[in-house]
């Protein structure tokens, strides 16, 4: 499978396929379908310093080829995570990414410093969650705040940091540049698009938070464009995601410049997707005589 080996900063992934945060739990939930070690990497459910119960009311709403979610970062907190889940995640032979959110800088910093004591491979700095009131996406909407938080985290973190960007920001590629300038090792994009649904029968918004995050095949064309723009704008690795549901989609993102790709919502309708994409990419390389998948990276 060396055709798929992909270096992300200093980590050598066996392939560029990563399970996206919030769609793959802590790596164990799909193991009846395939061994999660076949994946290049796994990003944990978004963690925050303190436990969060998540949002009330309806959390999921299907849209045409898309999914609105308003989970609200339900998670046990970083401490419970390092105590209960990290060893299980570490037992999976795959790059271990911890997705880290927060309500304010202090929370991010404290979370990151706890993680310094554990053998994880990457921090994915989530400054793009549209489903929490304070913080979250707010940091990801402006170049200066995104750059600021990146710099502060980089100052204290022993782990490489990939910043997860919001497609709701004015210009994703400008934010990416700002993250790069402030020391980000990589960026991942996109998180979900802010969307909305109305329950016309009951005359009210479907979600108690009013807005929610849109993911899935519906957003793929926009996500792909943003990944393409960002890959042209920065020199650090870009991890691309948004609506990927097949190995062909993955190839599109890699051609657009992504070093690795993540699969999120695609796992839901097809619990075998991760494995299928790894196999599909392998076969694609074979069929096209590629020694390594990187040969098509950014060719568009």
């Amino acid at each position, binding site marked *: 499978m060396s055709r798929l080996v992909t270096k992300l900063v200093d980590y050598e992934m066996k392939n560029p396929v990563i399970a996206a945060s919030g769609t793959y739990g802590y790596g164990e939930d799909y193991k009846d379908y395939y061994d999660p070690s076949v994946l290049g990497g796994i990003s944990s459910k978004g963690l925050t310093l303190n436990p969060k119960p*998540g949002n009330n009311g309806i959390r999921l709403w299907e849209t045409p080829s898309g999914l609105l979610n308003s989970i609200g970062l339900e998670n046990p907190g970083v401490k419970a995570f390092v105590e209960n889940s990290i060893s299980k995640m570490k037992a999976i032979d795959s790059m271990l990414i911890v997705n880290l959110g927060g309500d304010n800088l202090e929370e991010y910093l404290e979370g990151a410093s706890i993680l310094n004591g554990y053998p994880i491979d990457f921090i994915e700095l989530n400054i793009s969650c549209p489903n929490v009131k304070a913080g979250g996406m707010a940091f990801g909407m402006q170049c200066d705040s995104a750059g600021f938080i990146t710099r502060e985290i980089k100052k204290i973190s022993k782990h490489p940091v990939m910043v997860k960007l919001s497609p709701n920001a004015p210009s994703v590629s400008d934010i990416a540049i700002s993250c790069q300038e402030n020391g980000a090792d990589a960026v991942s994009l996109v998180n979900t698009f802010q969307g909305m649904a109305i329950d016309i029968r009951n005359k009210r918004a479907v979600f108690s938070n009013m807005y929610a995050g849109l993911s899935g095949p519906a957003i793929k064309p926009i996500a792909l464009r943003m990944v393409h723009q960002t890959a042209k704008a920065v020199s650090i690795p870009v991890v691309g995601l948004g609506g990927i549901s097949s190995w062909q989609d993955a190839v599109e993102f890699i051609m657009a410049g992504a070093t690795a790709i993540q699969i999120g919502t695609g796992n839901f309708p097809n619990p075998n997707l991760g494995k299928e994409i790894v196999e599909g990419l392998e076969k694609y390389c074979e069929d096209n005589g590629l020694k390594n998948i990187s040969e098509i990276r950014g060719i568009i």
Partner: protein
Amino acid sequence: MAVIIENKNLGDGMYLMKTDCTKKSSPGQFYMVRGWDKYPLLSRPISIFDWDGMTTSFLYRVVGEGTEILSKMTKGMEVVLHGPYGNGFPDIKEDTVTLIGGGIGTAPLYHTAKELKKRDPNKNIKLYLGFENKSDAAKEFESLDAEVIVRYGGYITDFVDYENAGTILTCGPEIMMKAAFERSKPYESKVYVSMEKRMACGVGACLGCTCKTEGGNKRTCKEGPVFEGGEVFFE
């Protein structure tokens, strides 16, 4: 992938789909079902109406896009089944078990009643089924070796003999399950309820189906869909 053996219209928007899926499942579990390729995006959680070793069946009601597609499928067509998922109803030690189903919430009770009887032929099983309108759905329960009480219209929970109910297993609208729970309190029955939440993954990965319980958040698809009444109706 399972093949449809029969997809029978029972009237009032309800259908019984029998597939050749032989996979073992427990009463109260469900499958994530899809009878289509890419659209709609998500699979649909549907309880196991029956599993007999050779076939798995589903009793479902057409309410939207997904169930509409299912209802139009015919013998020989393929349906994708991911599962079985969830905990299912526990095995009941008590001699008497009362099952209360409202509307399409009756679906998991057939398999449940059947299994309880199989495990203990002496078990005293009462099945209350409440439907809004007449249909052939109730007929599908006739073959059960149990006392089956069927009502059309009104609240099925008004007809239950709570005093002699034994353990109660219930599935249906939340308001109905809550009524059963409240009304059985004086008799200290153990009550198990099967919760319904929108689901994306079915495997516990997305936290979209979280159910607030007295013991904290639980995933309806994984730690549920069956909870003890007191766990969920605690507020």
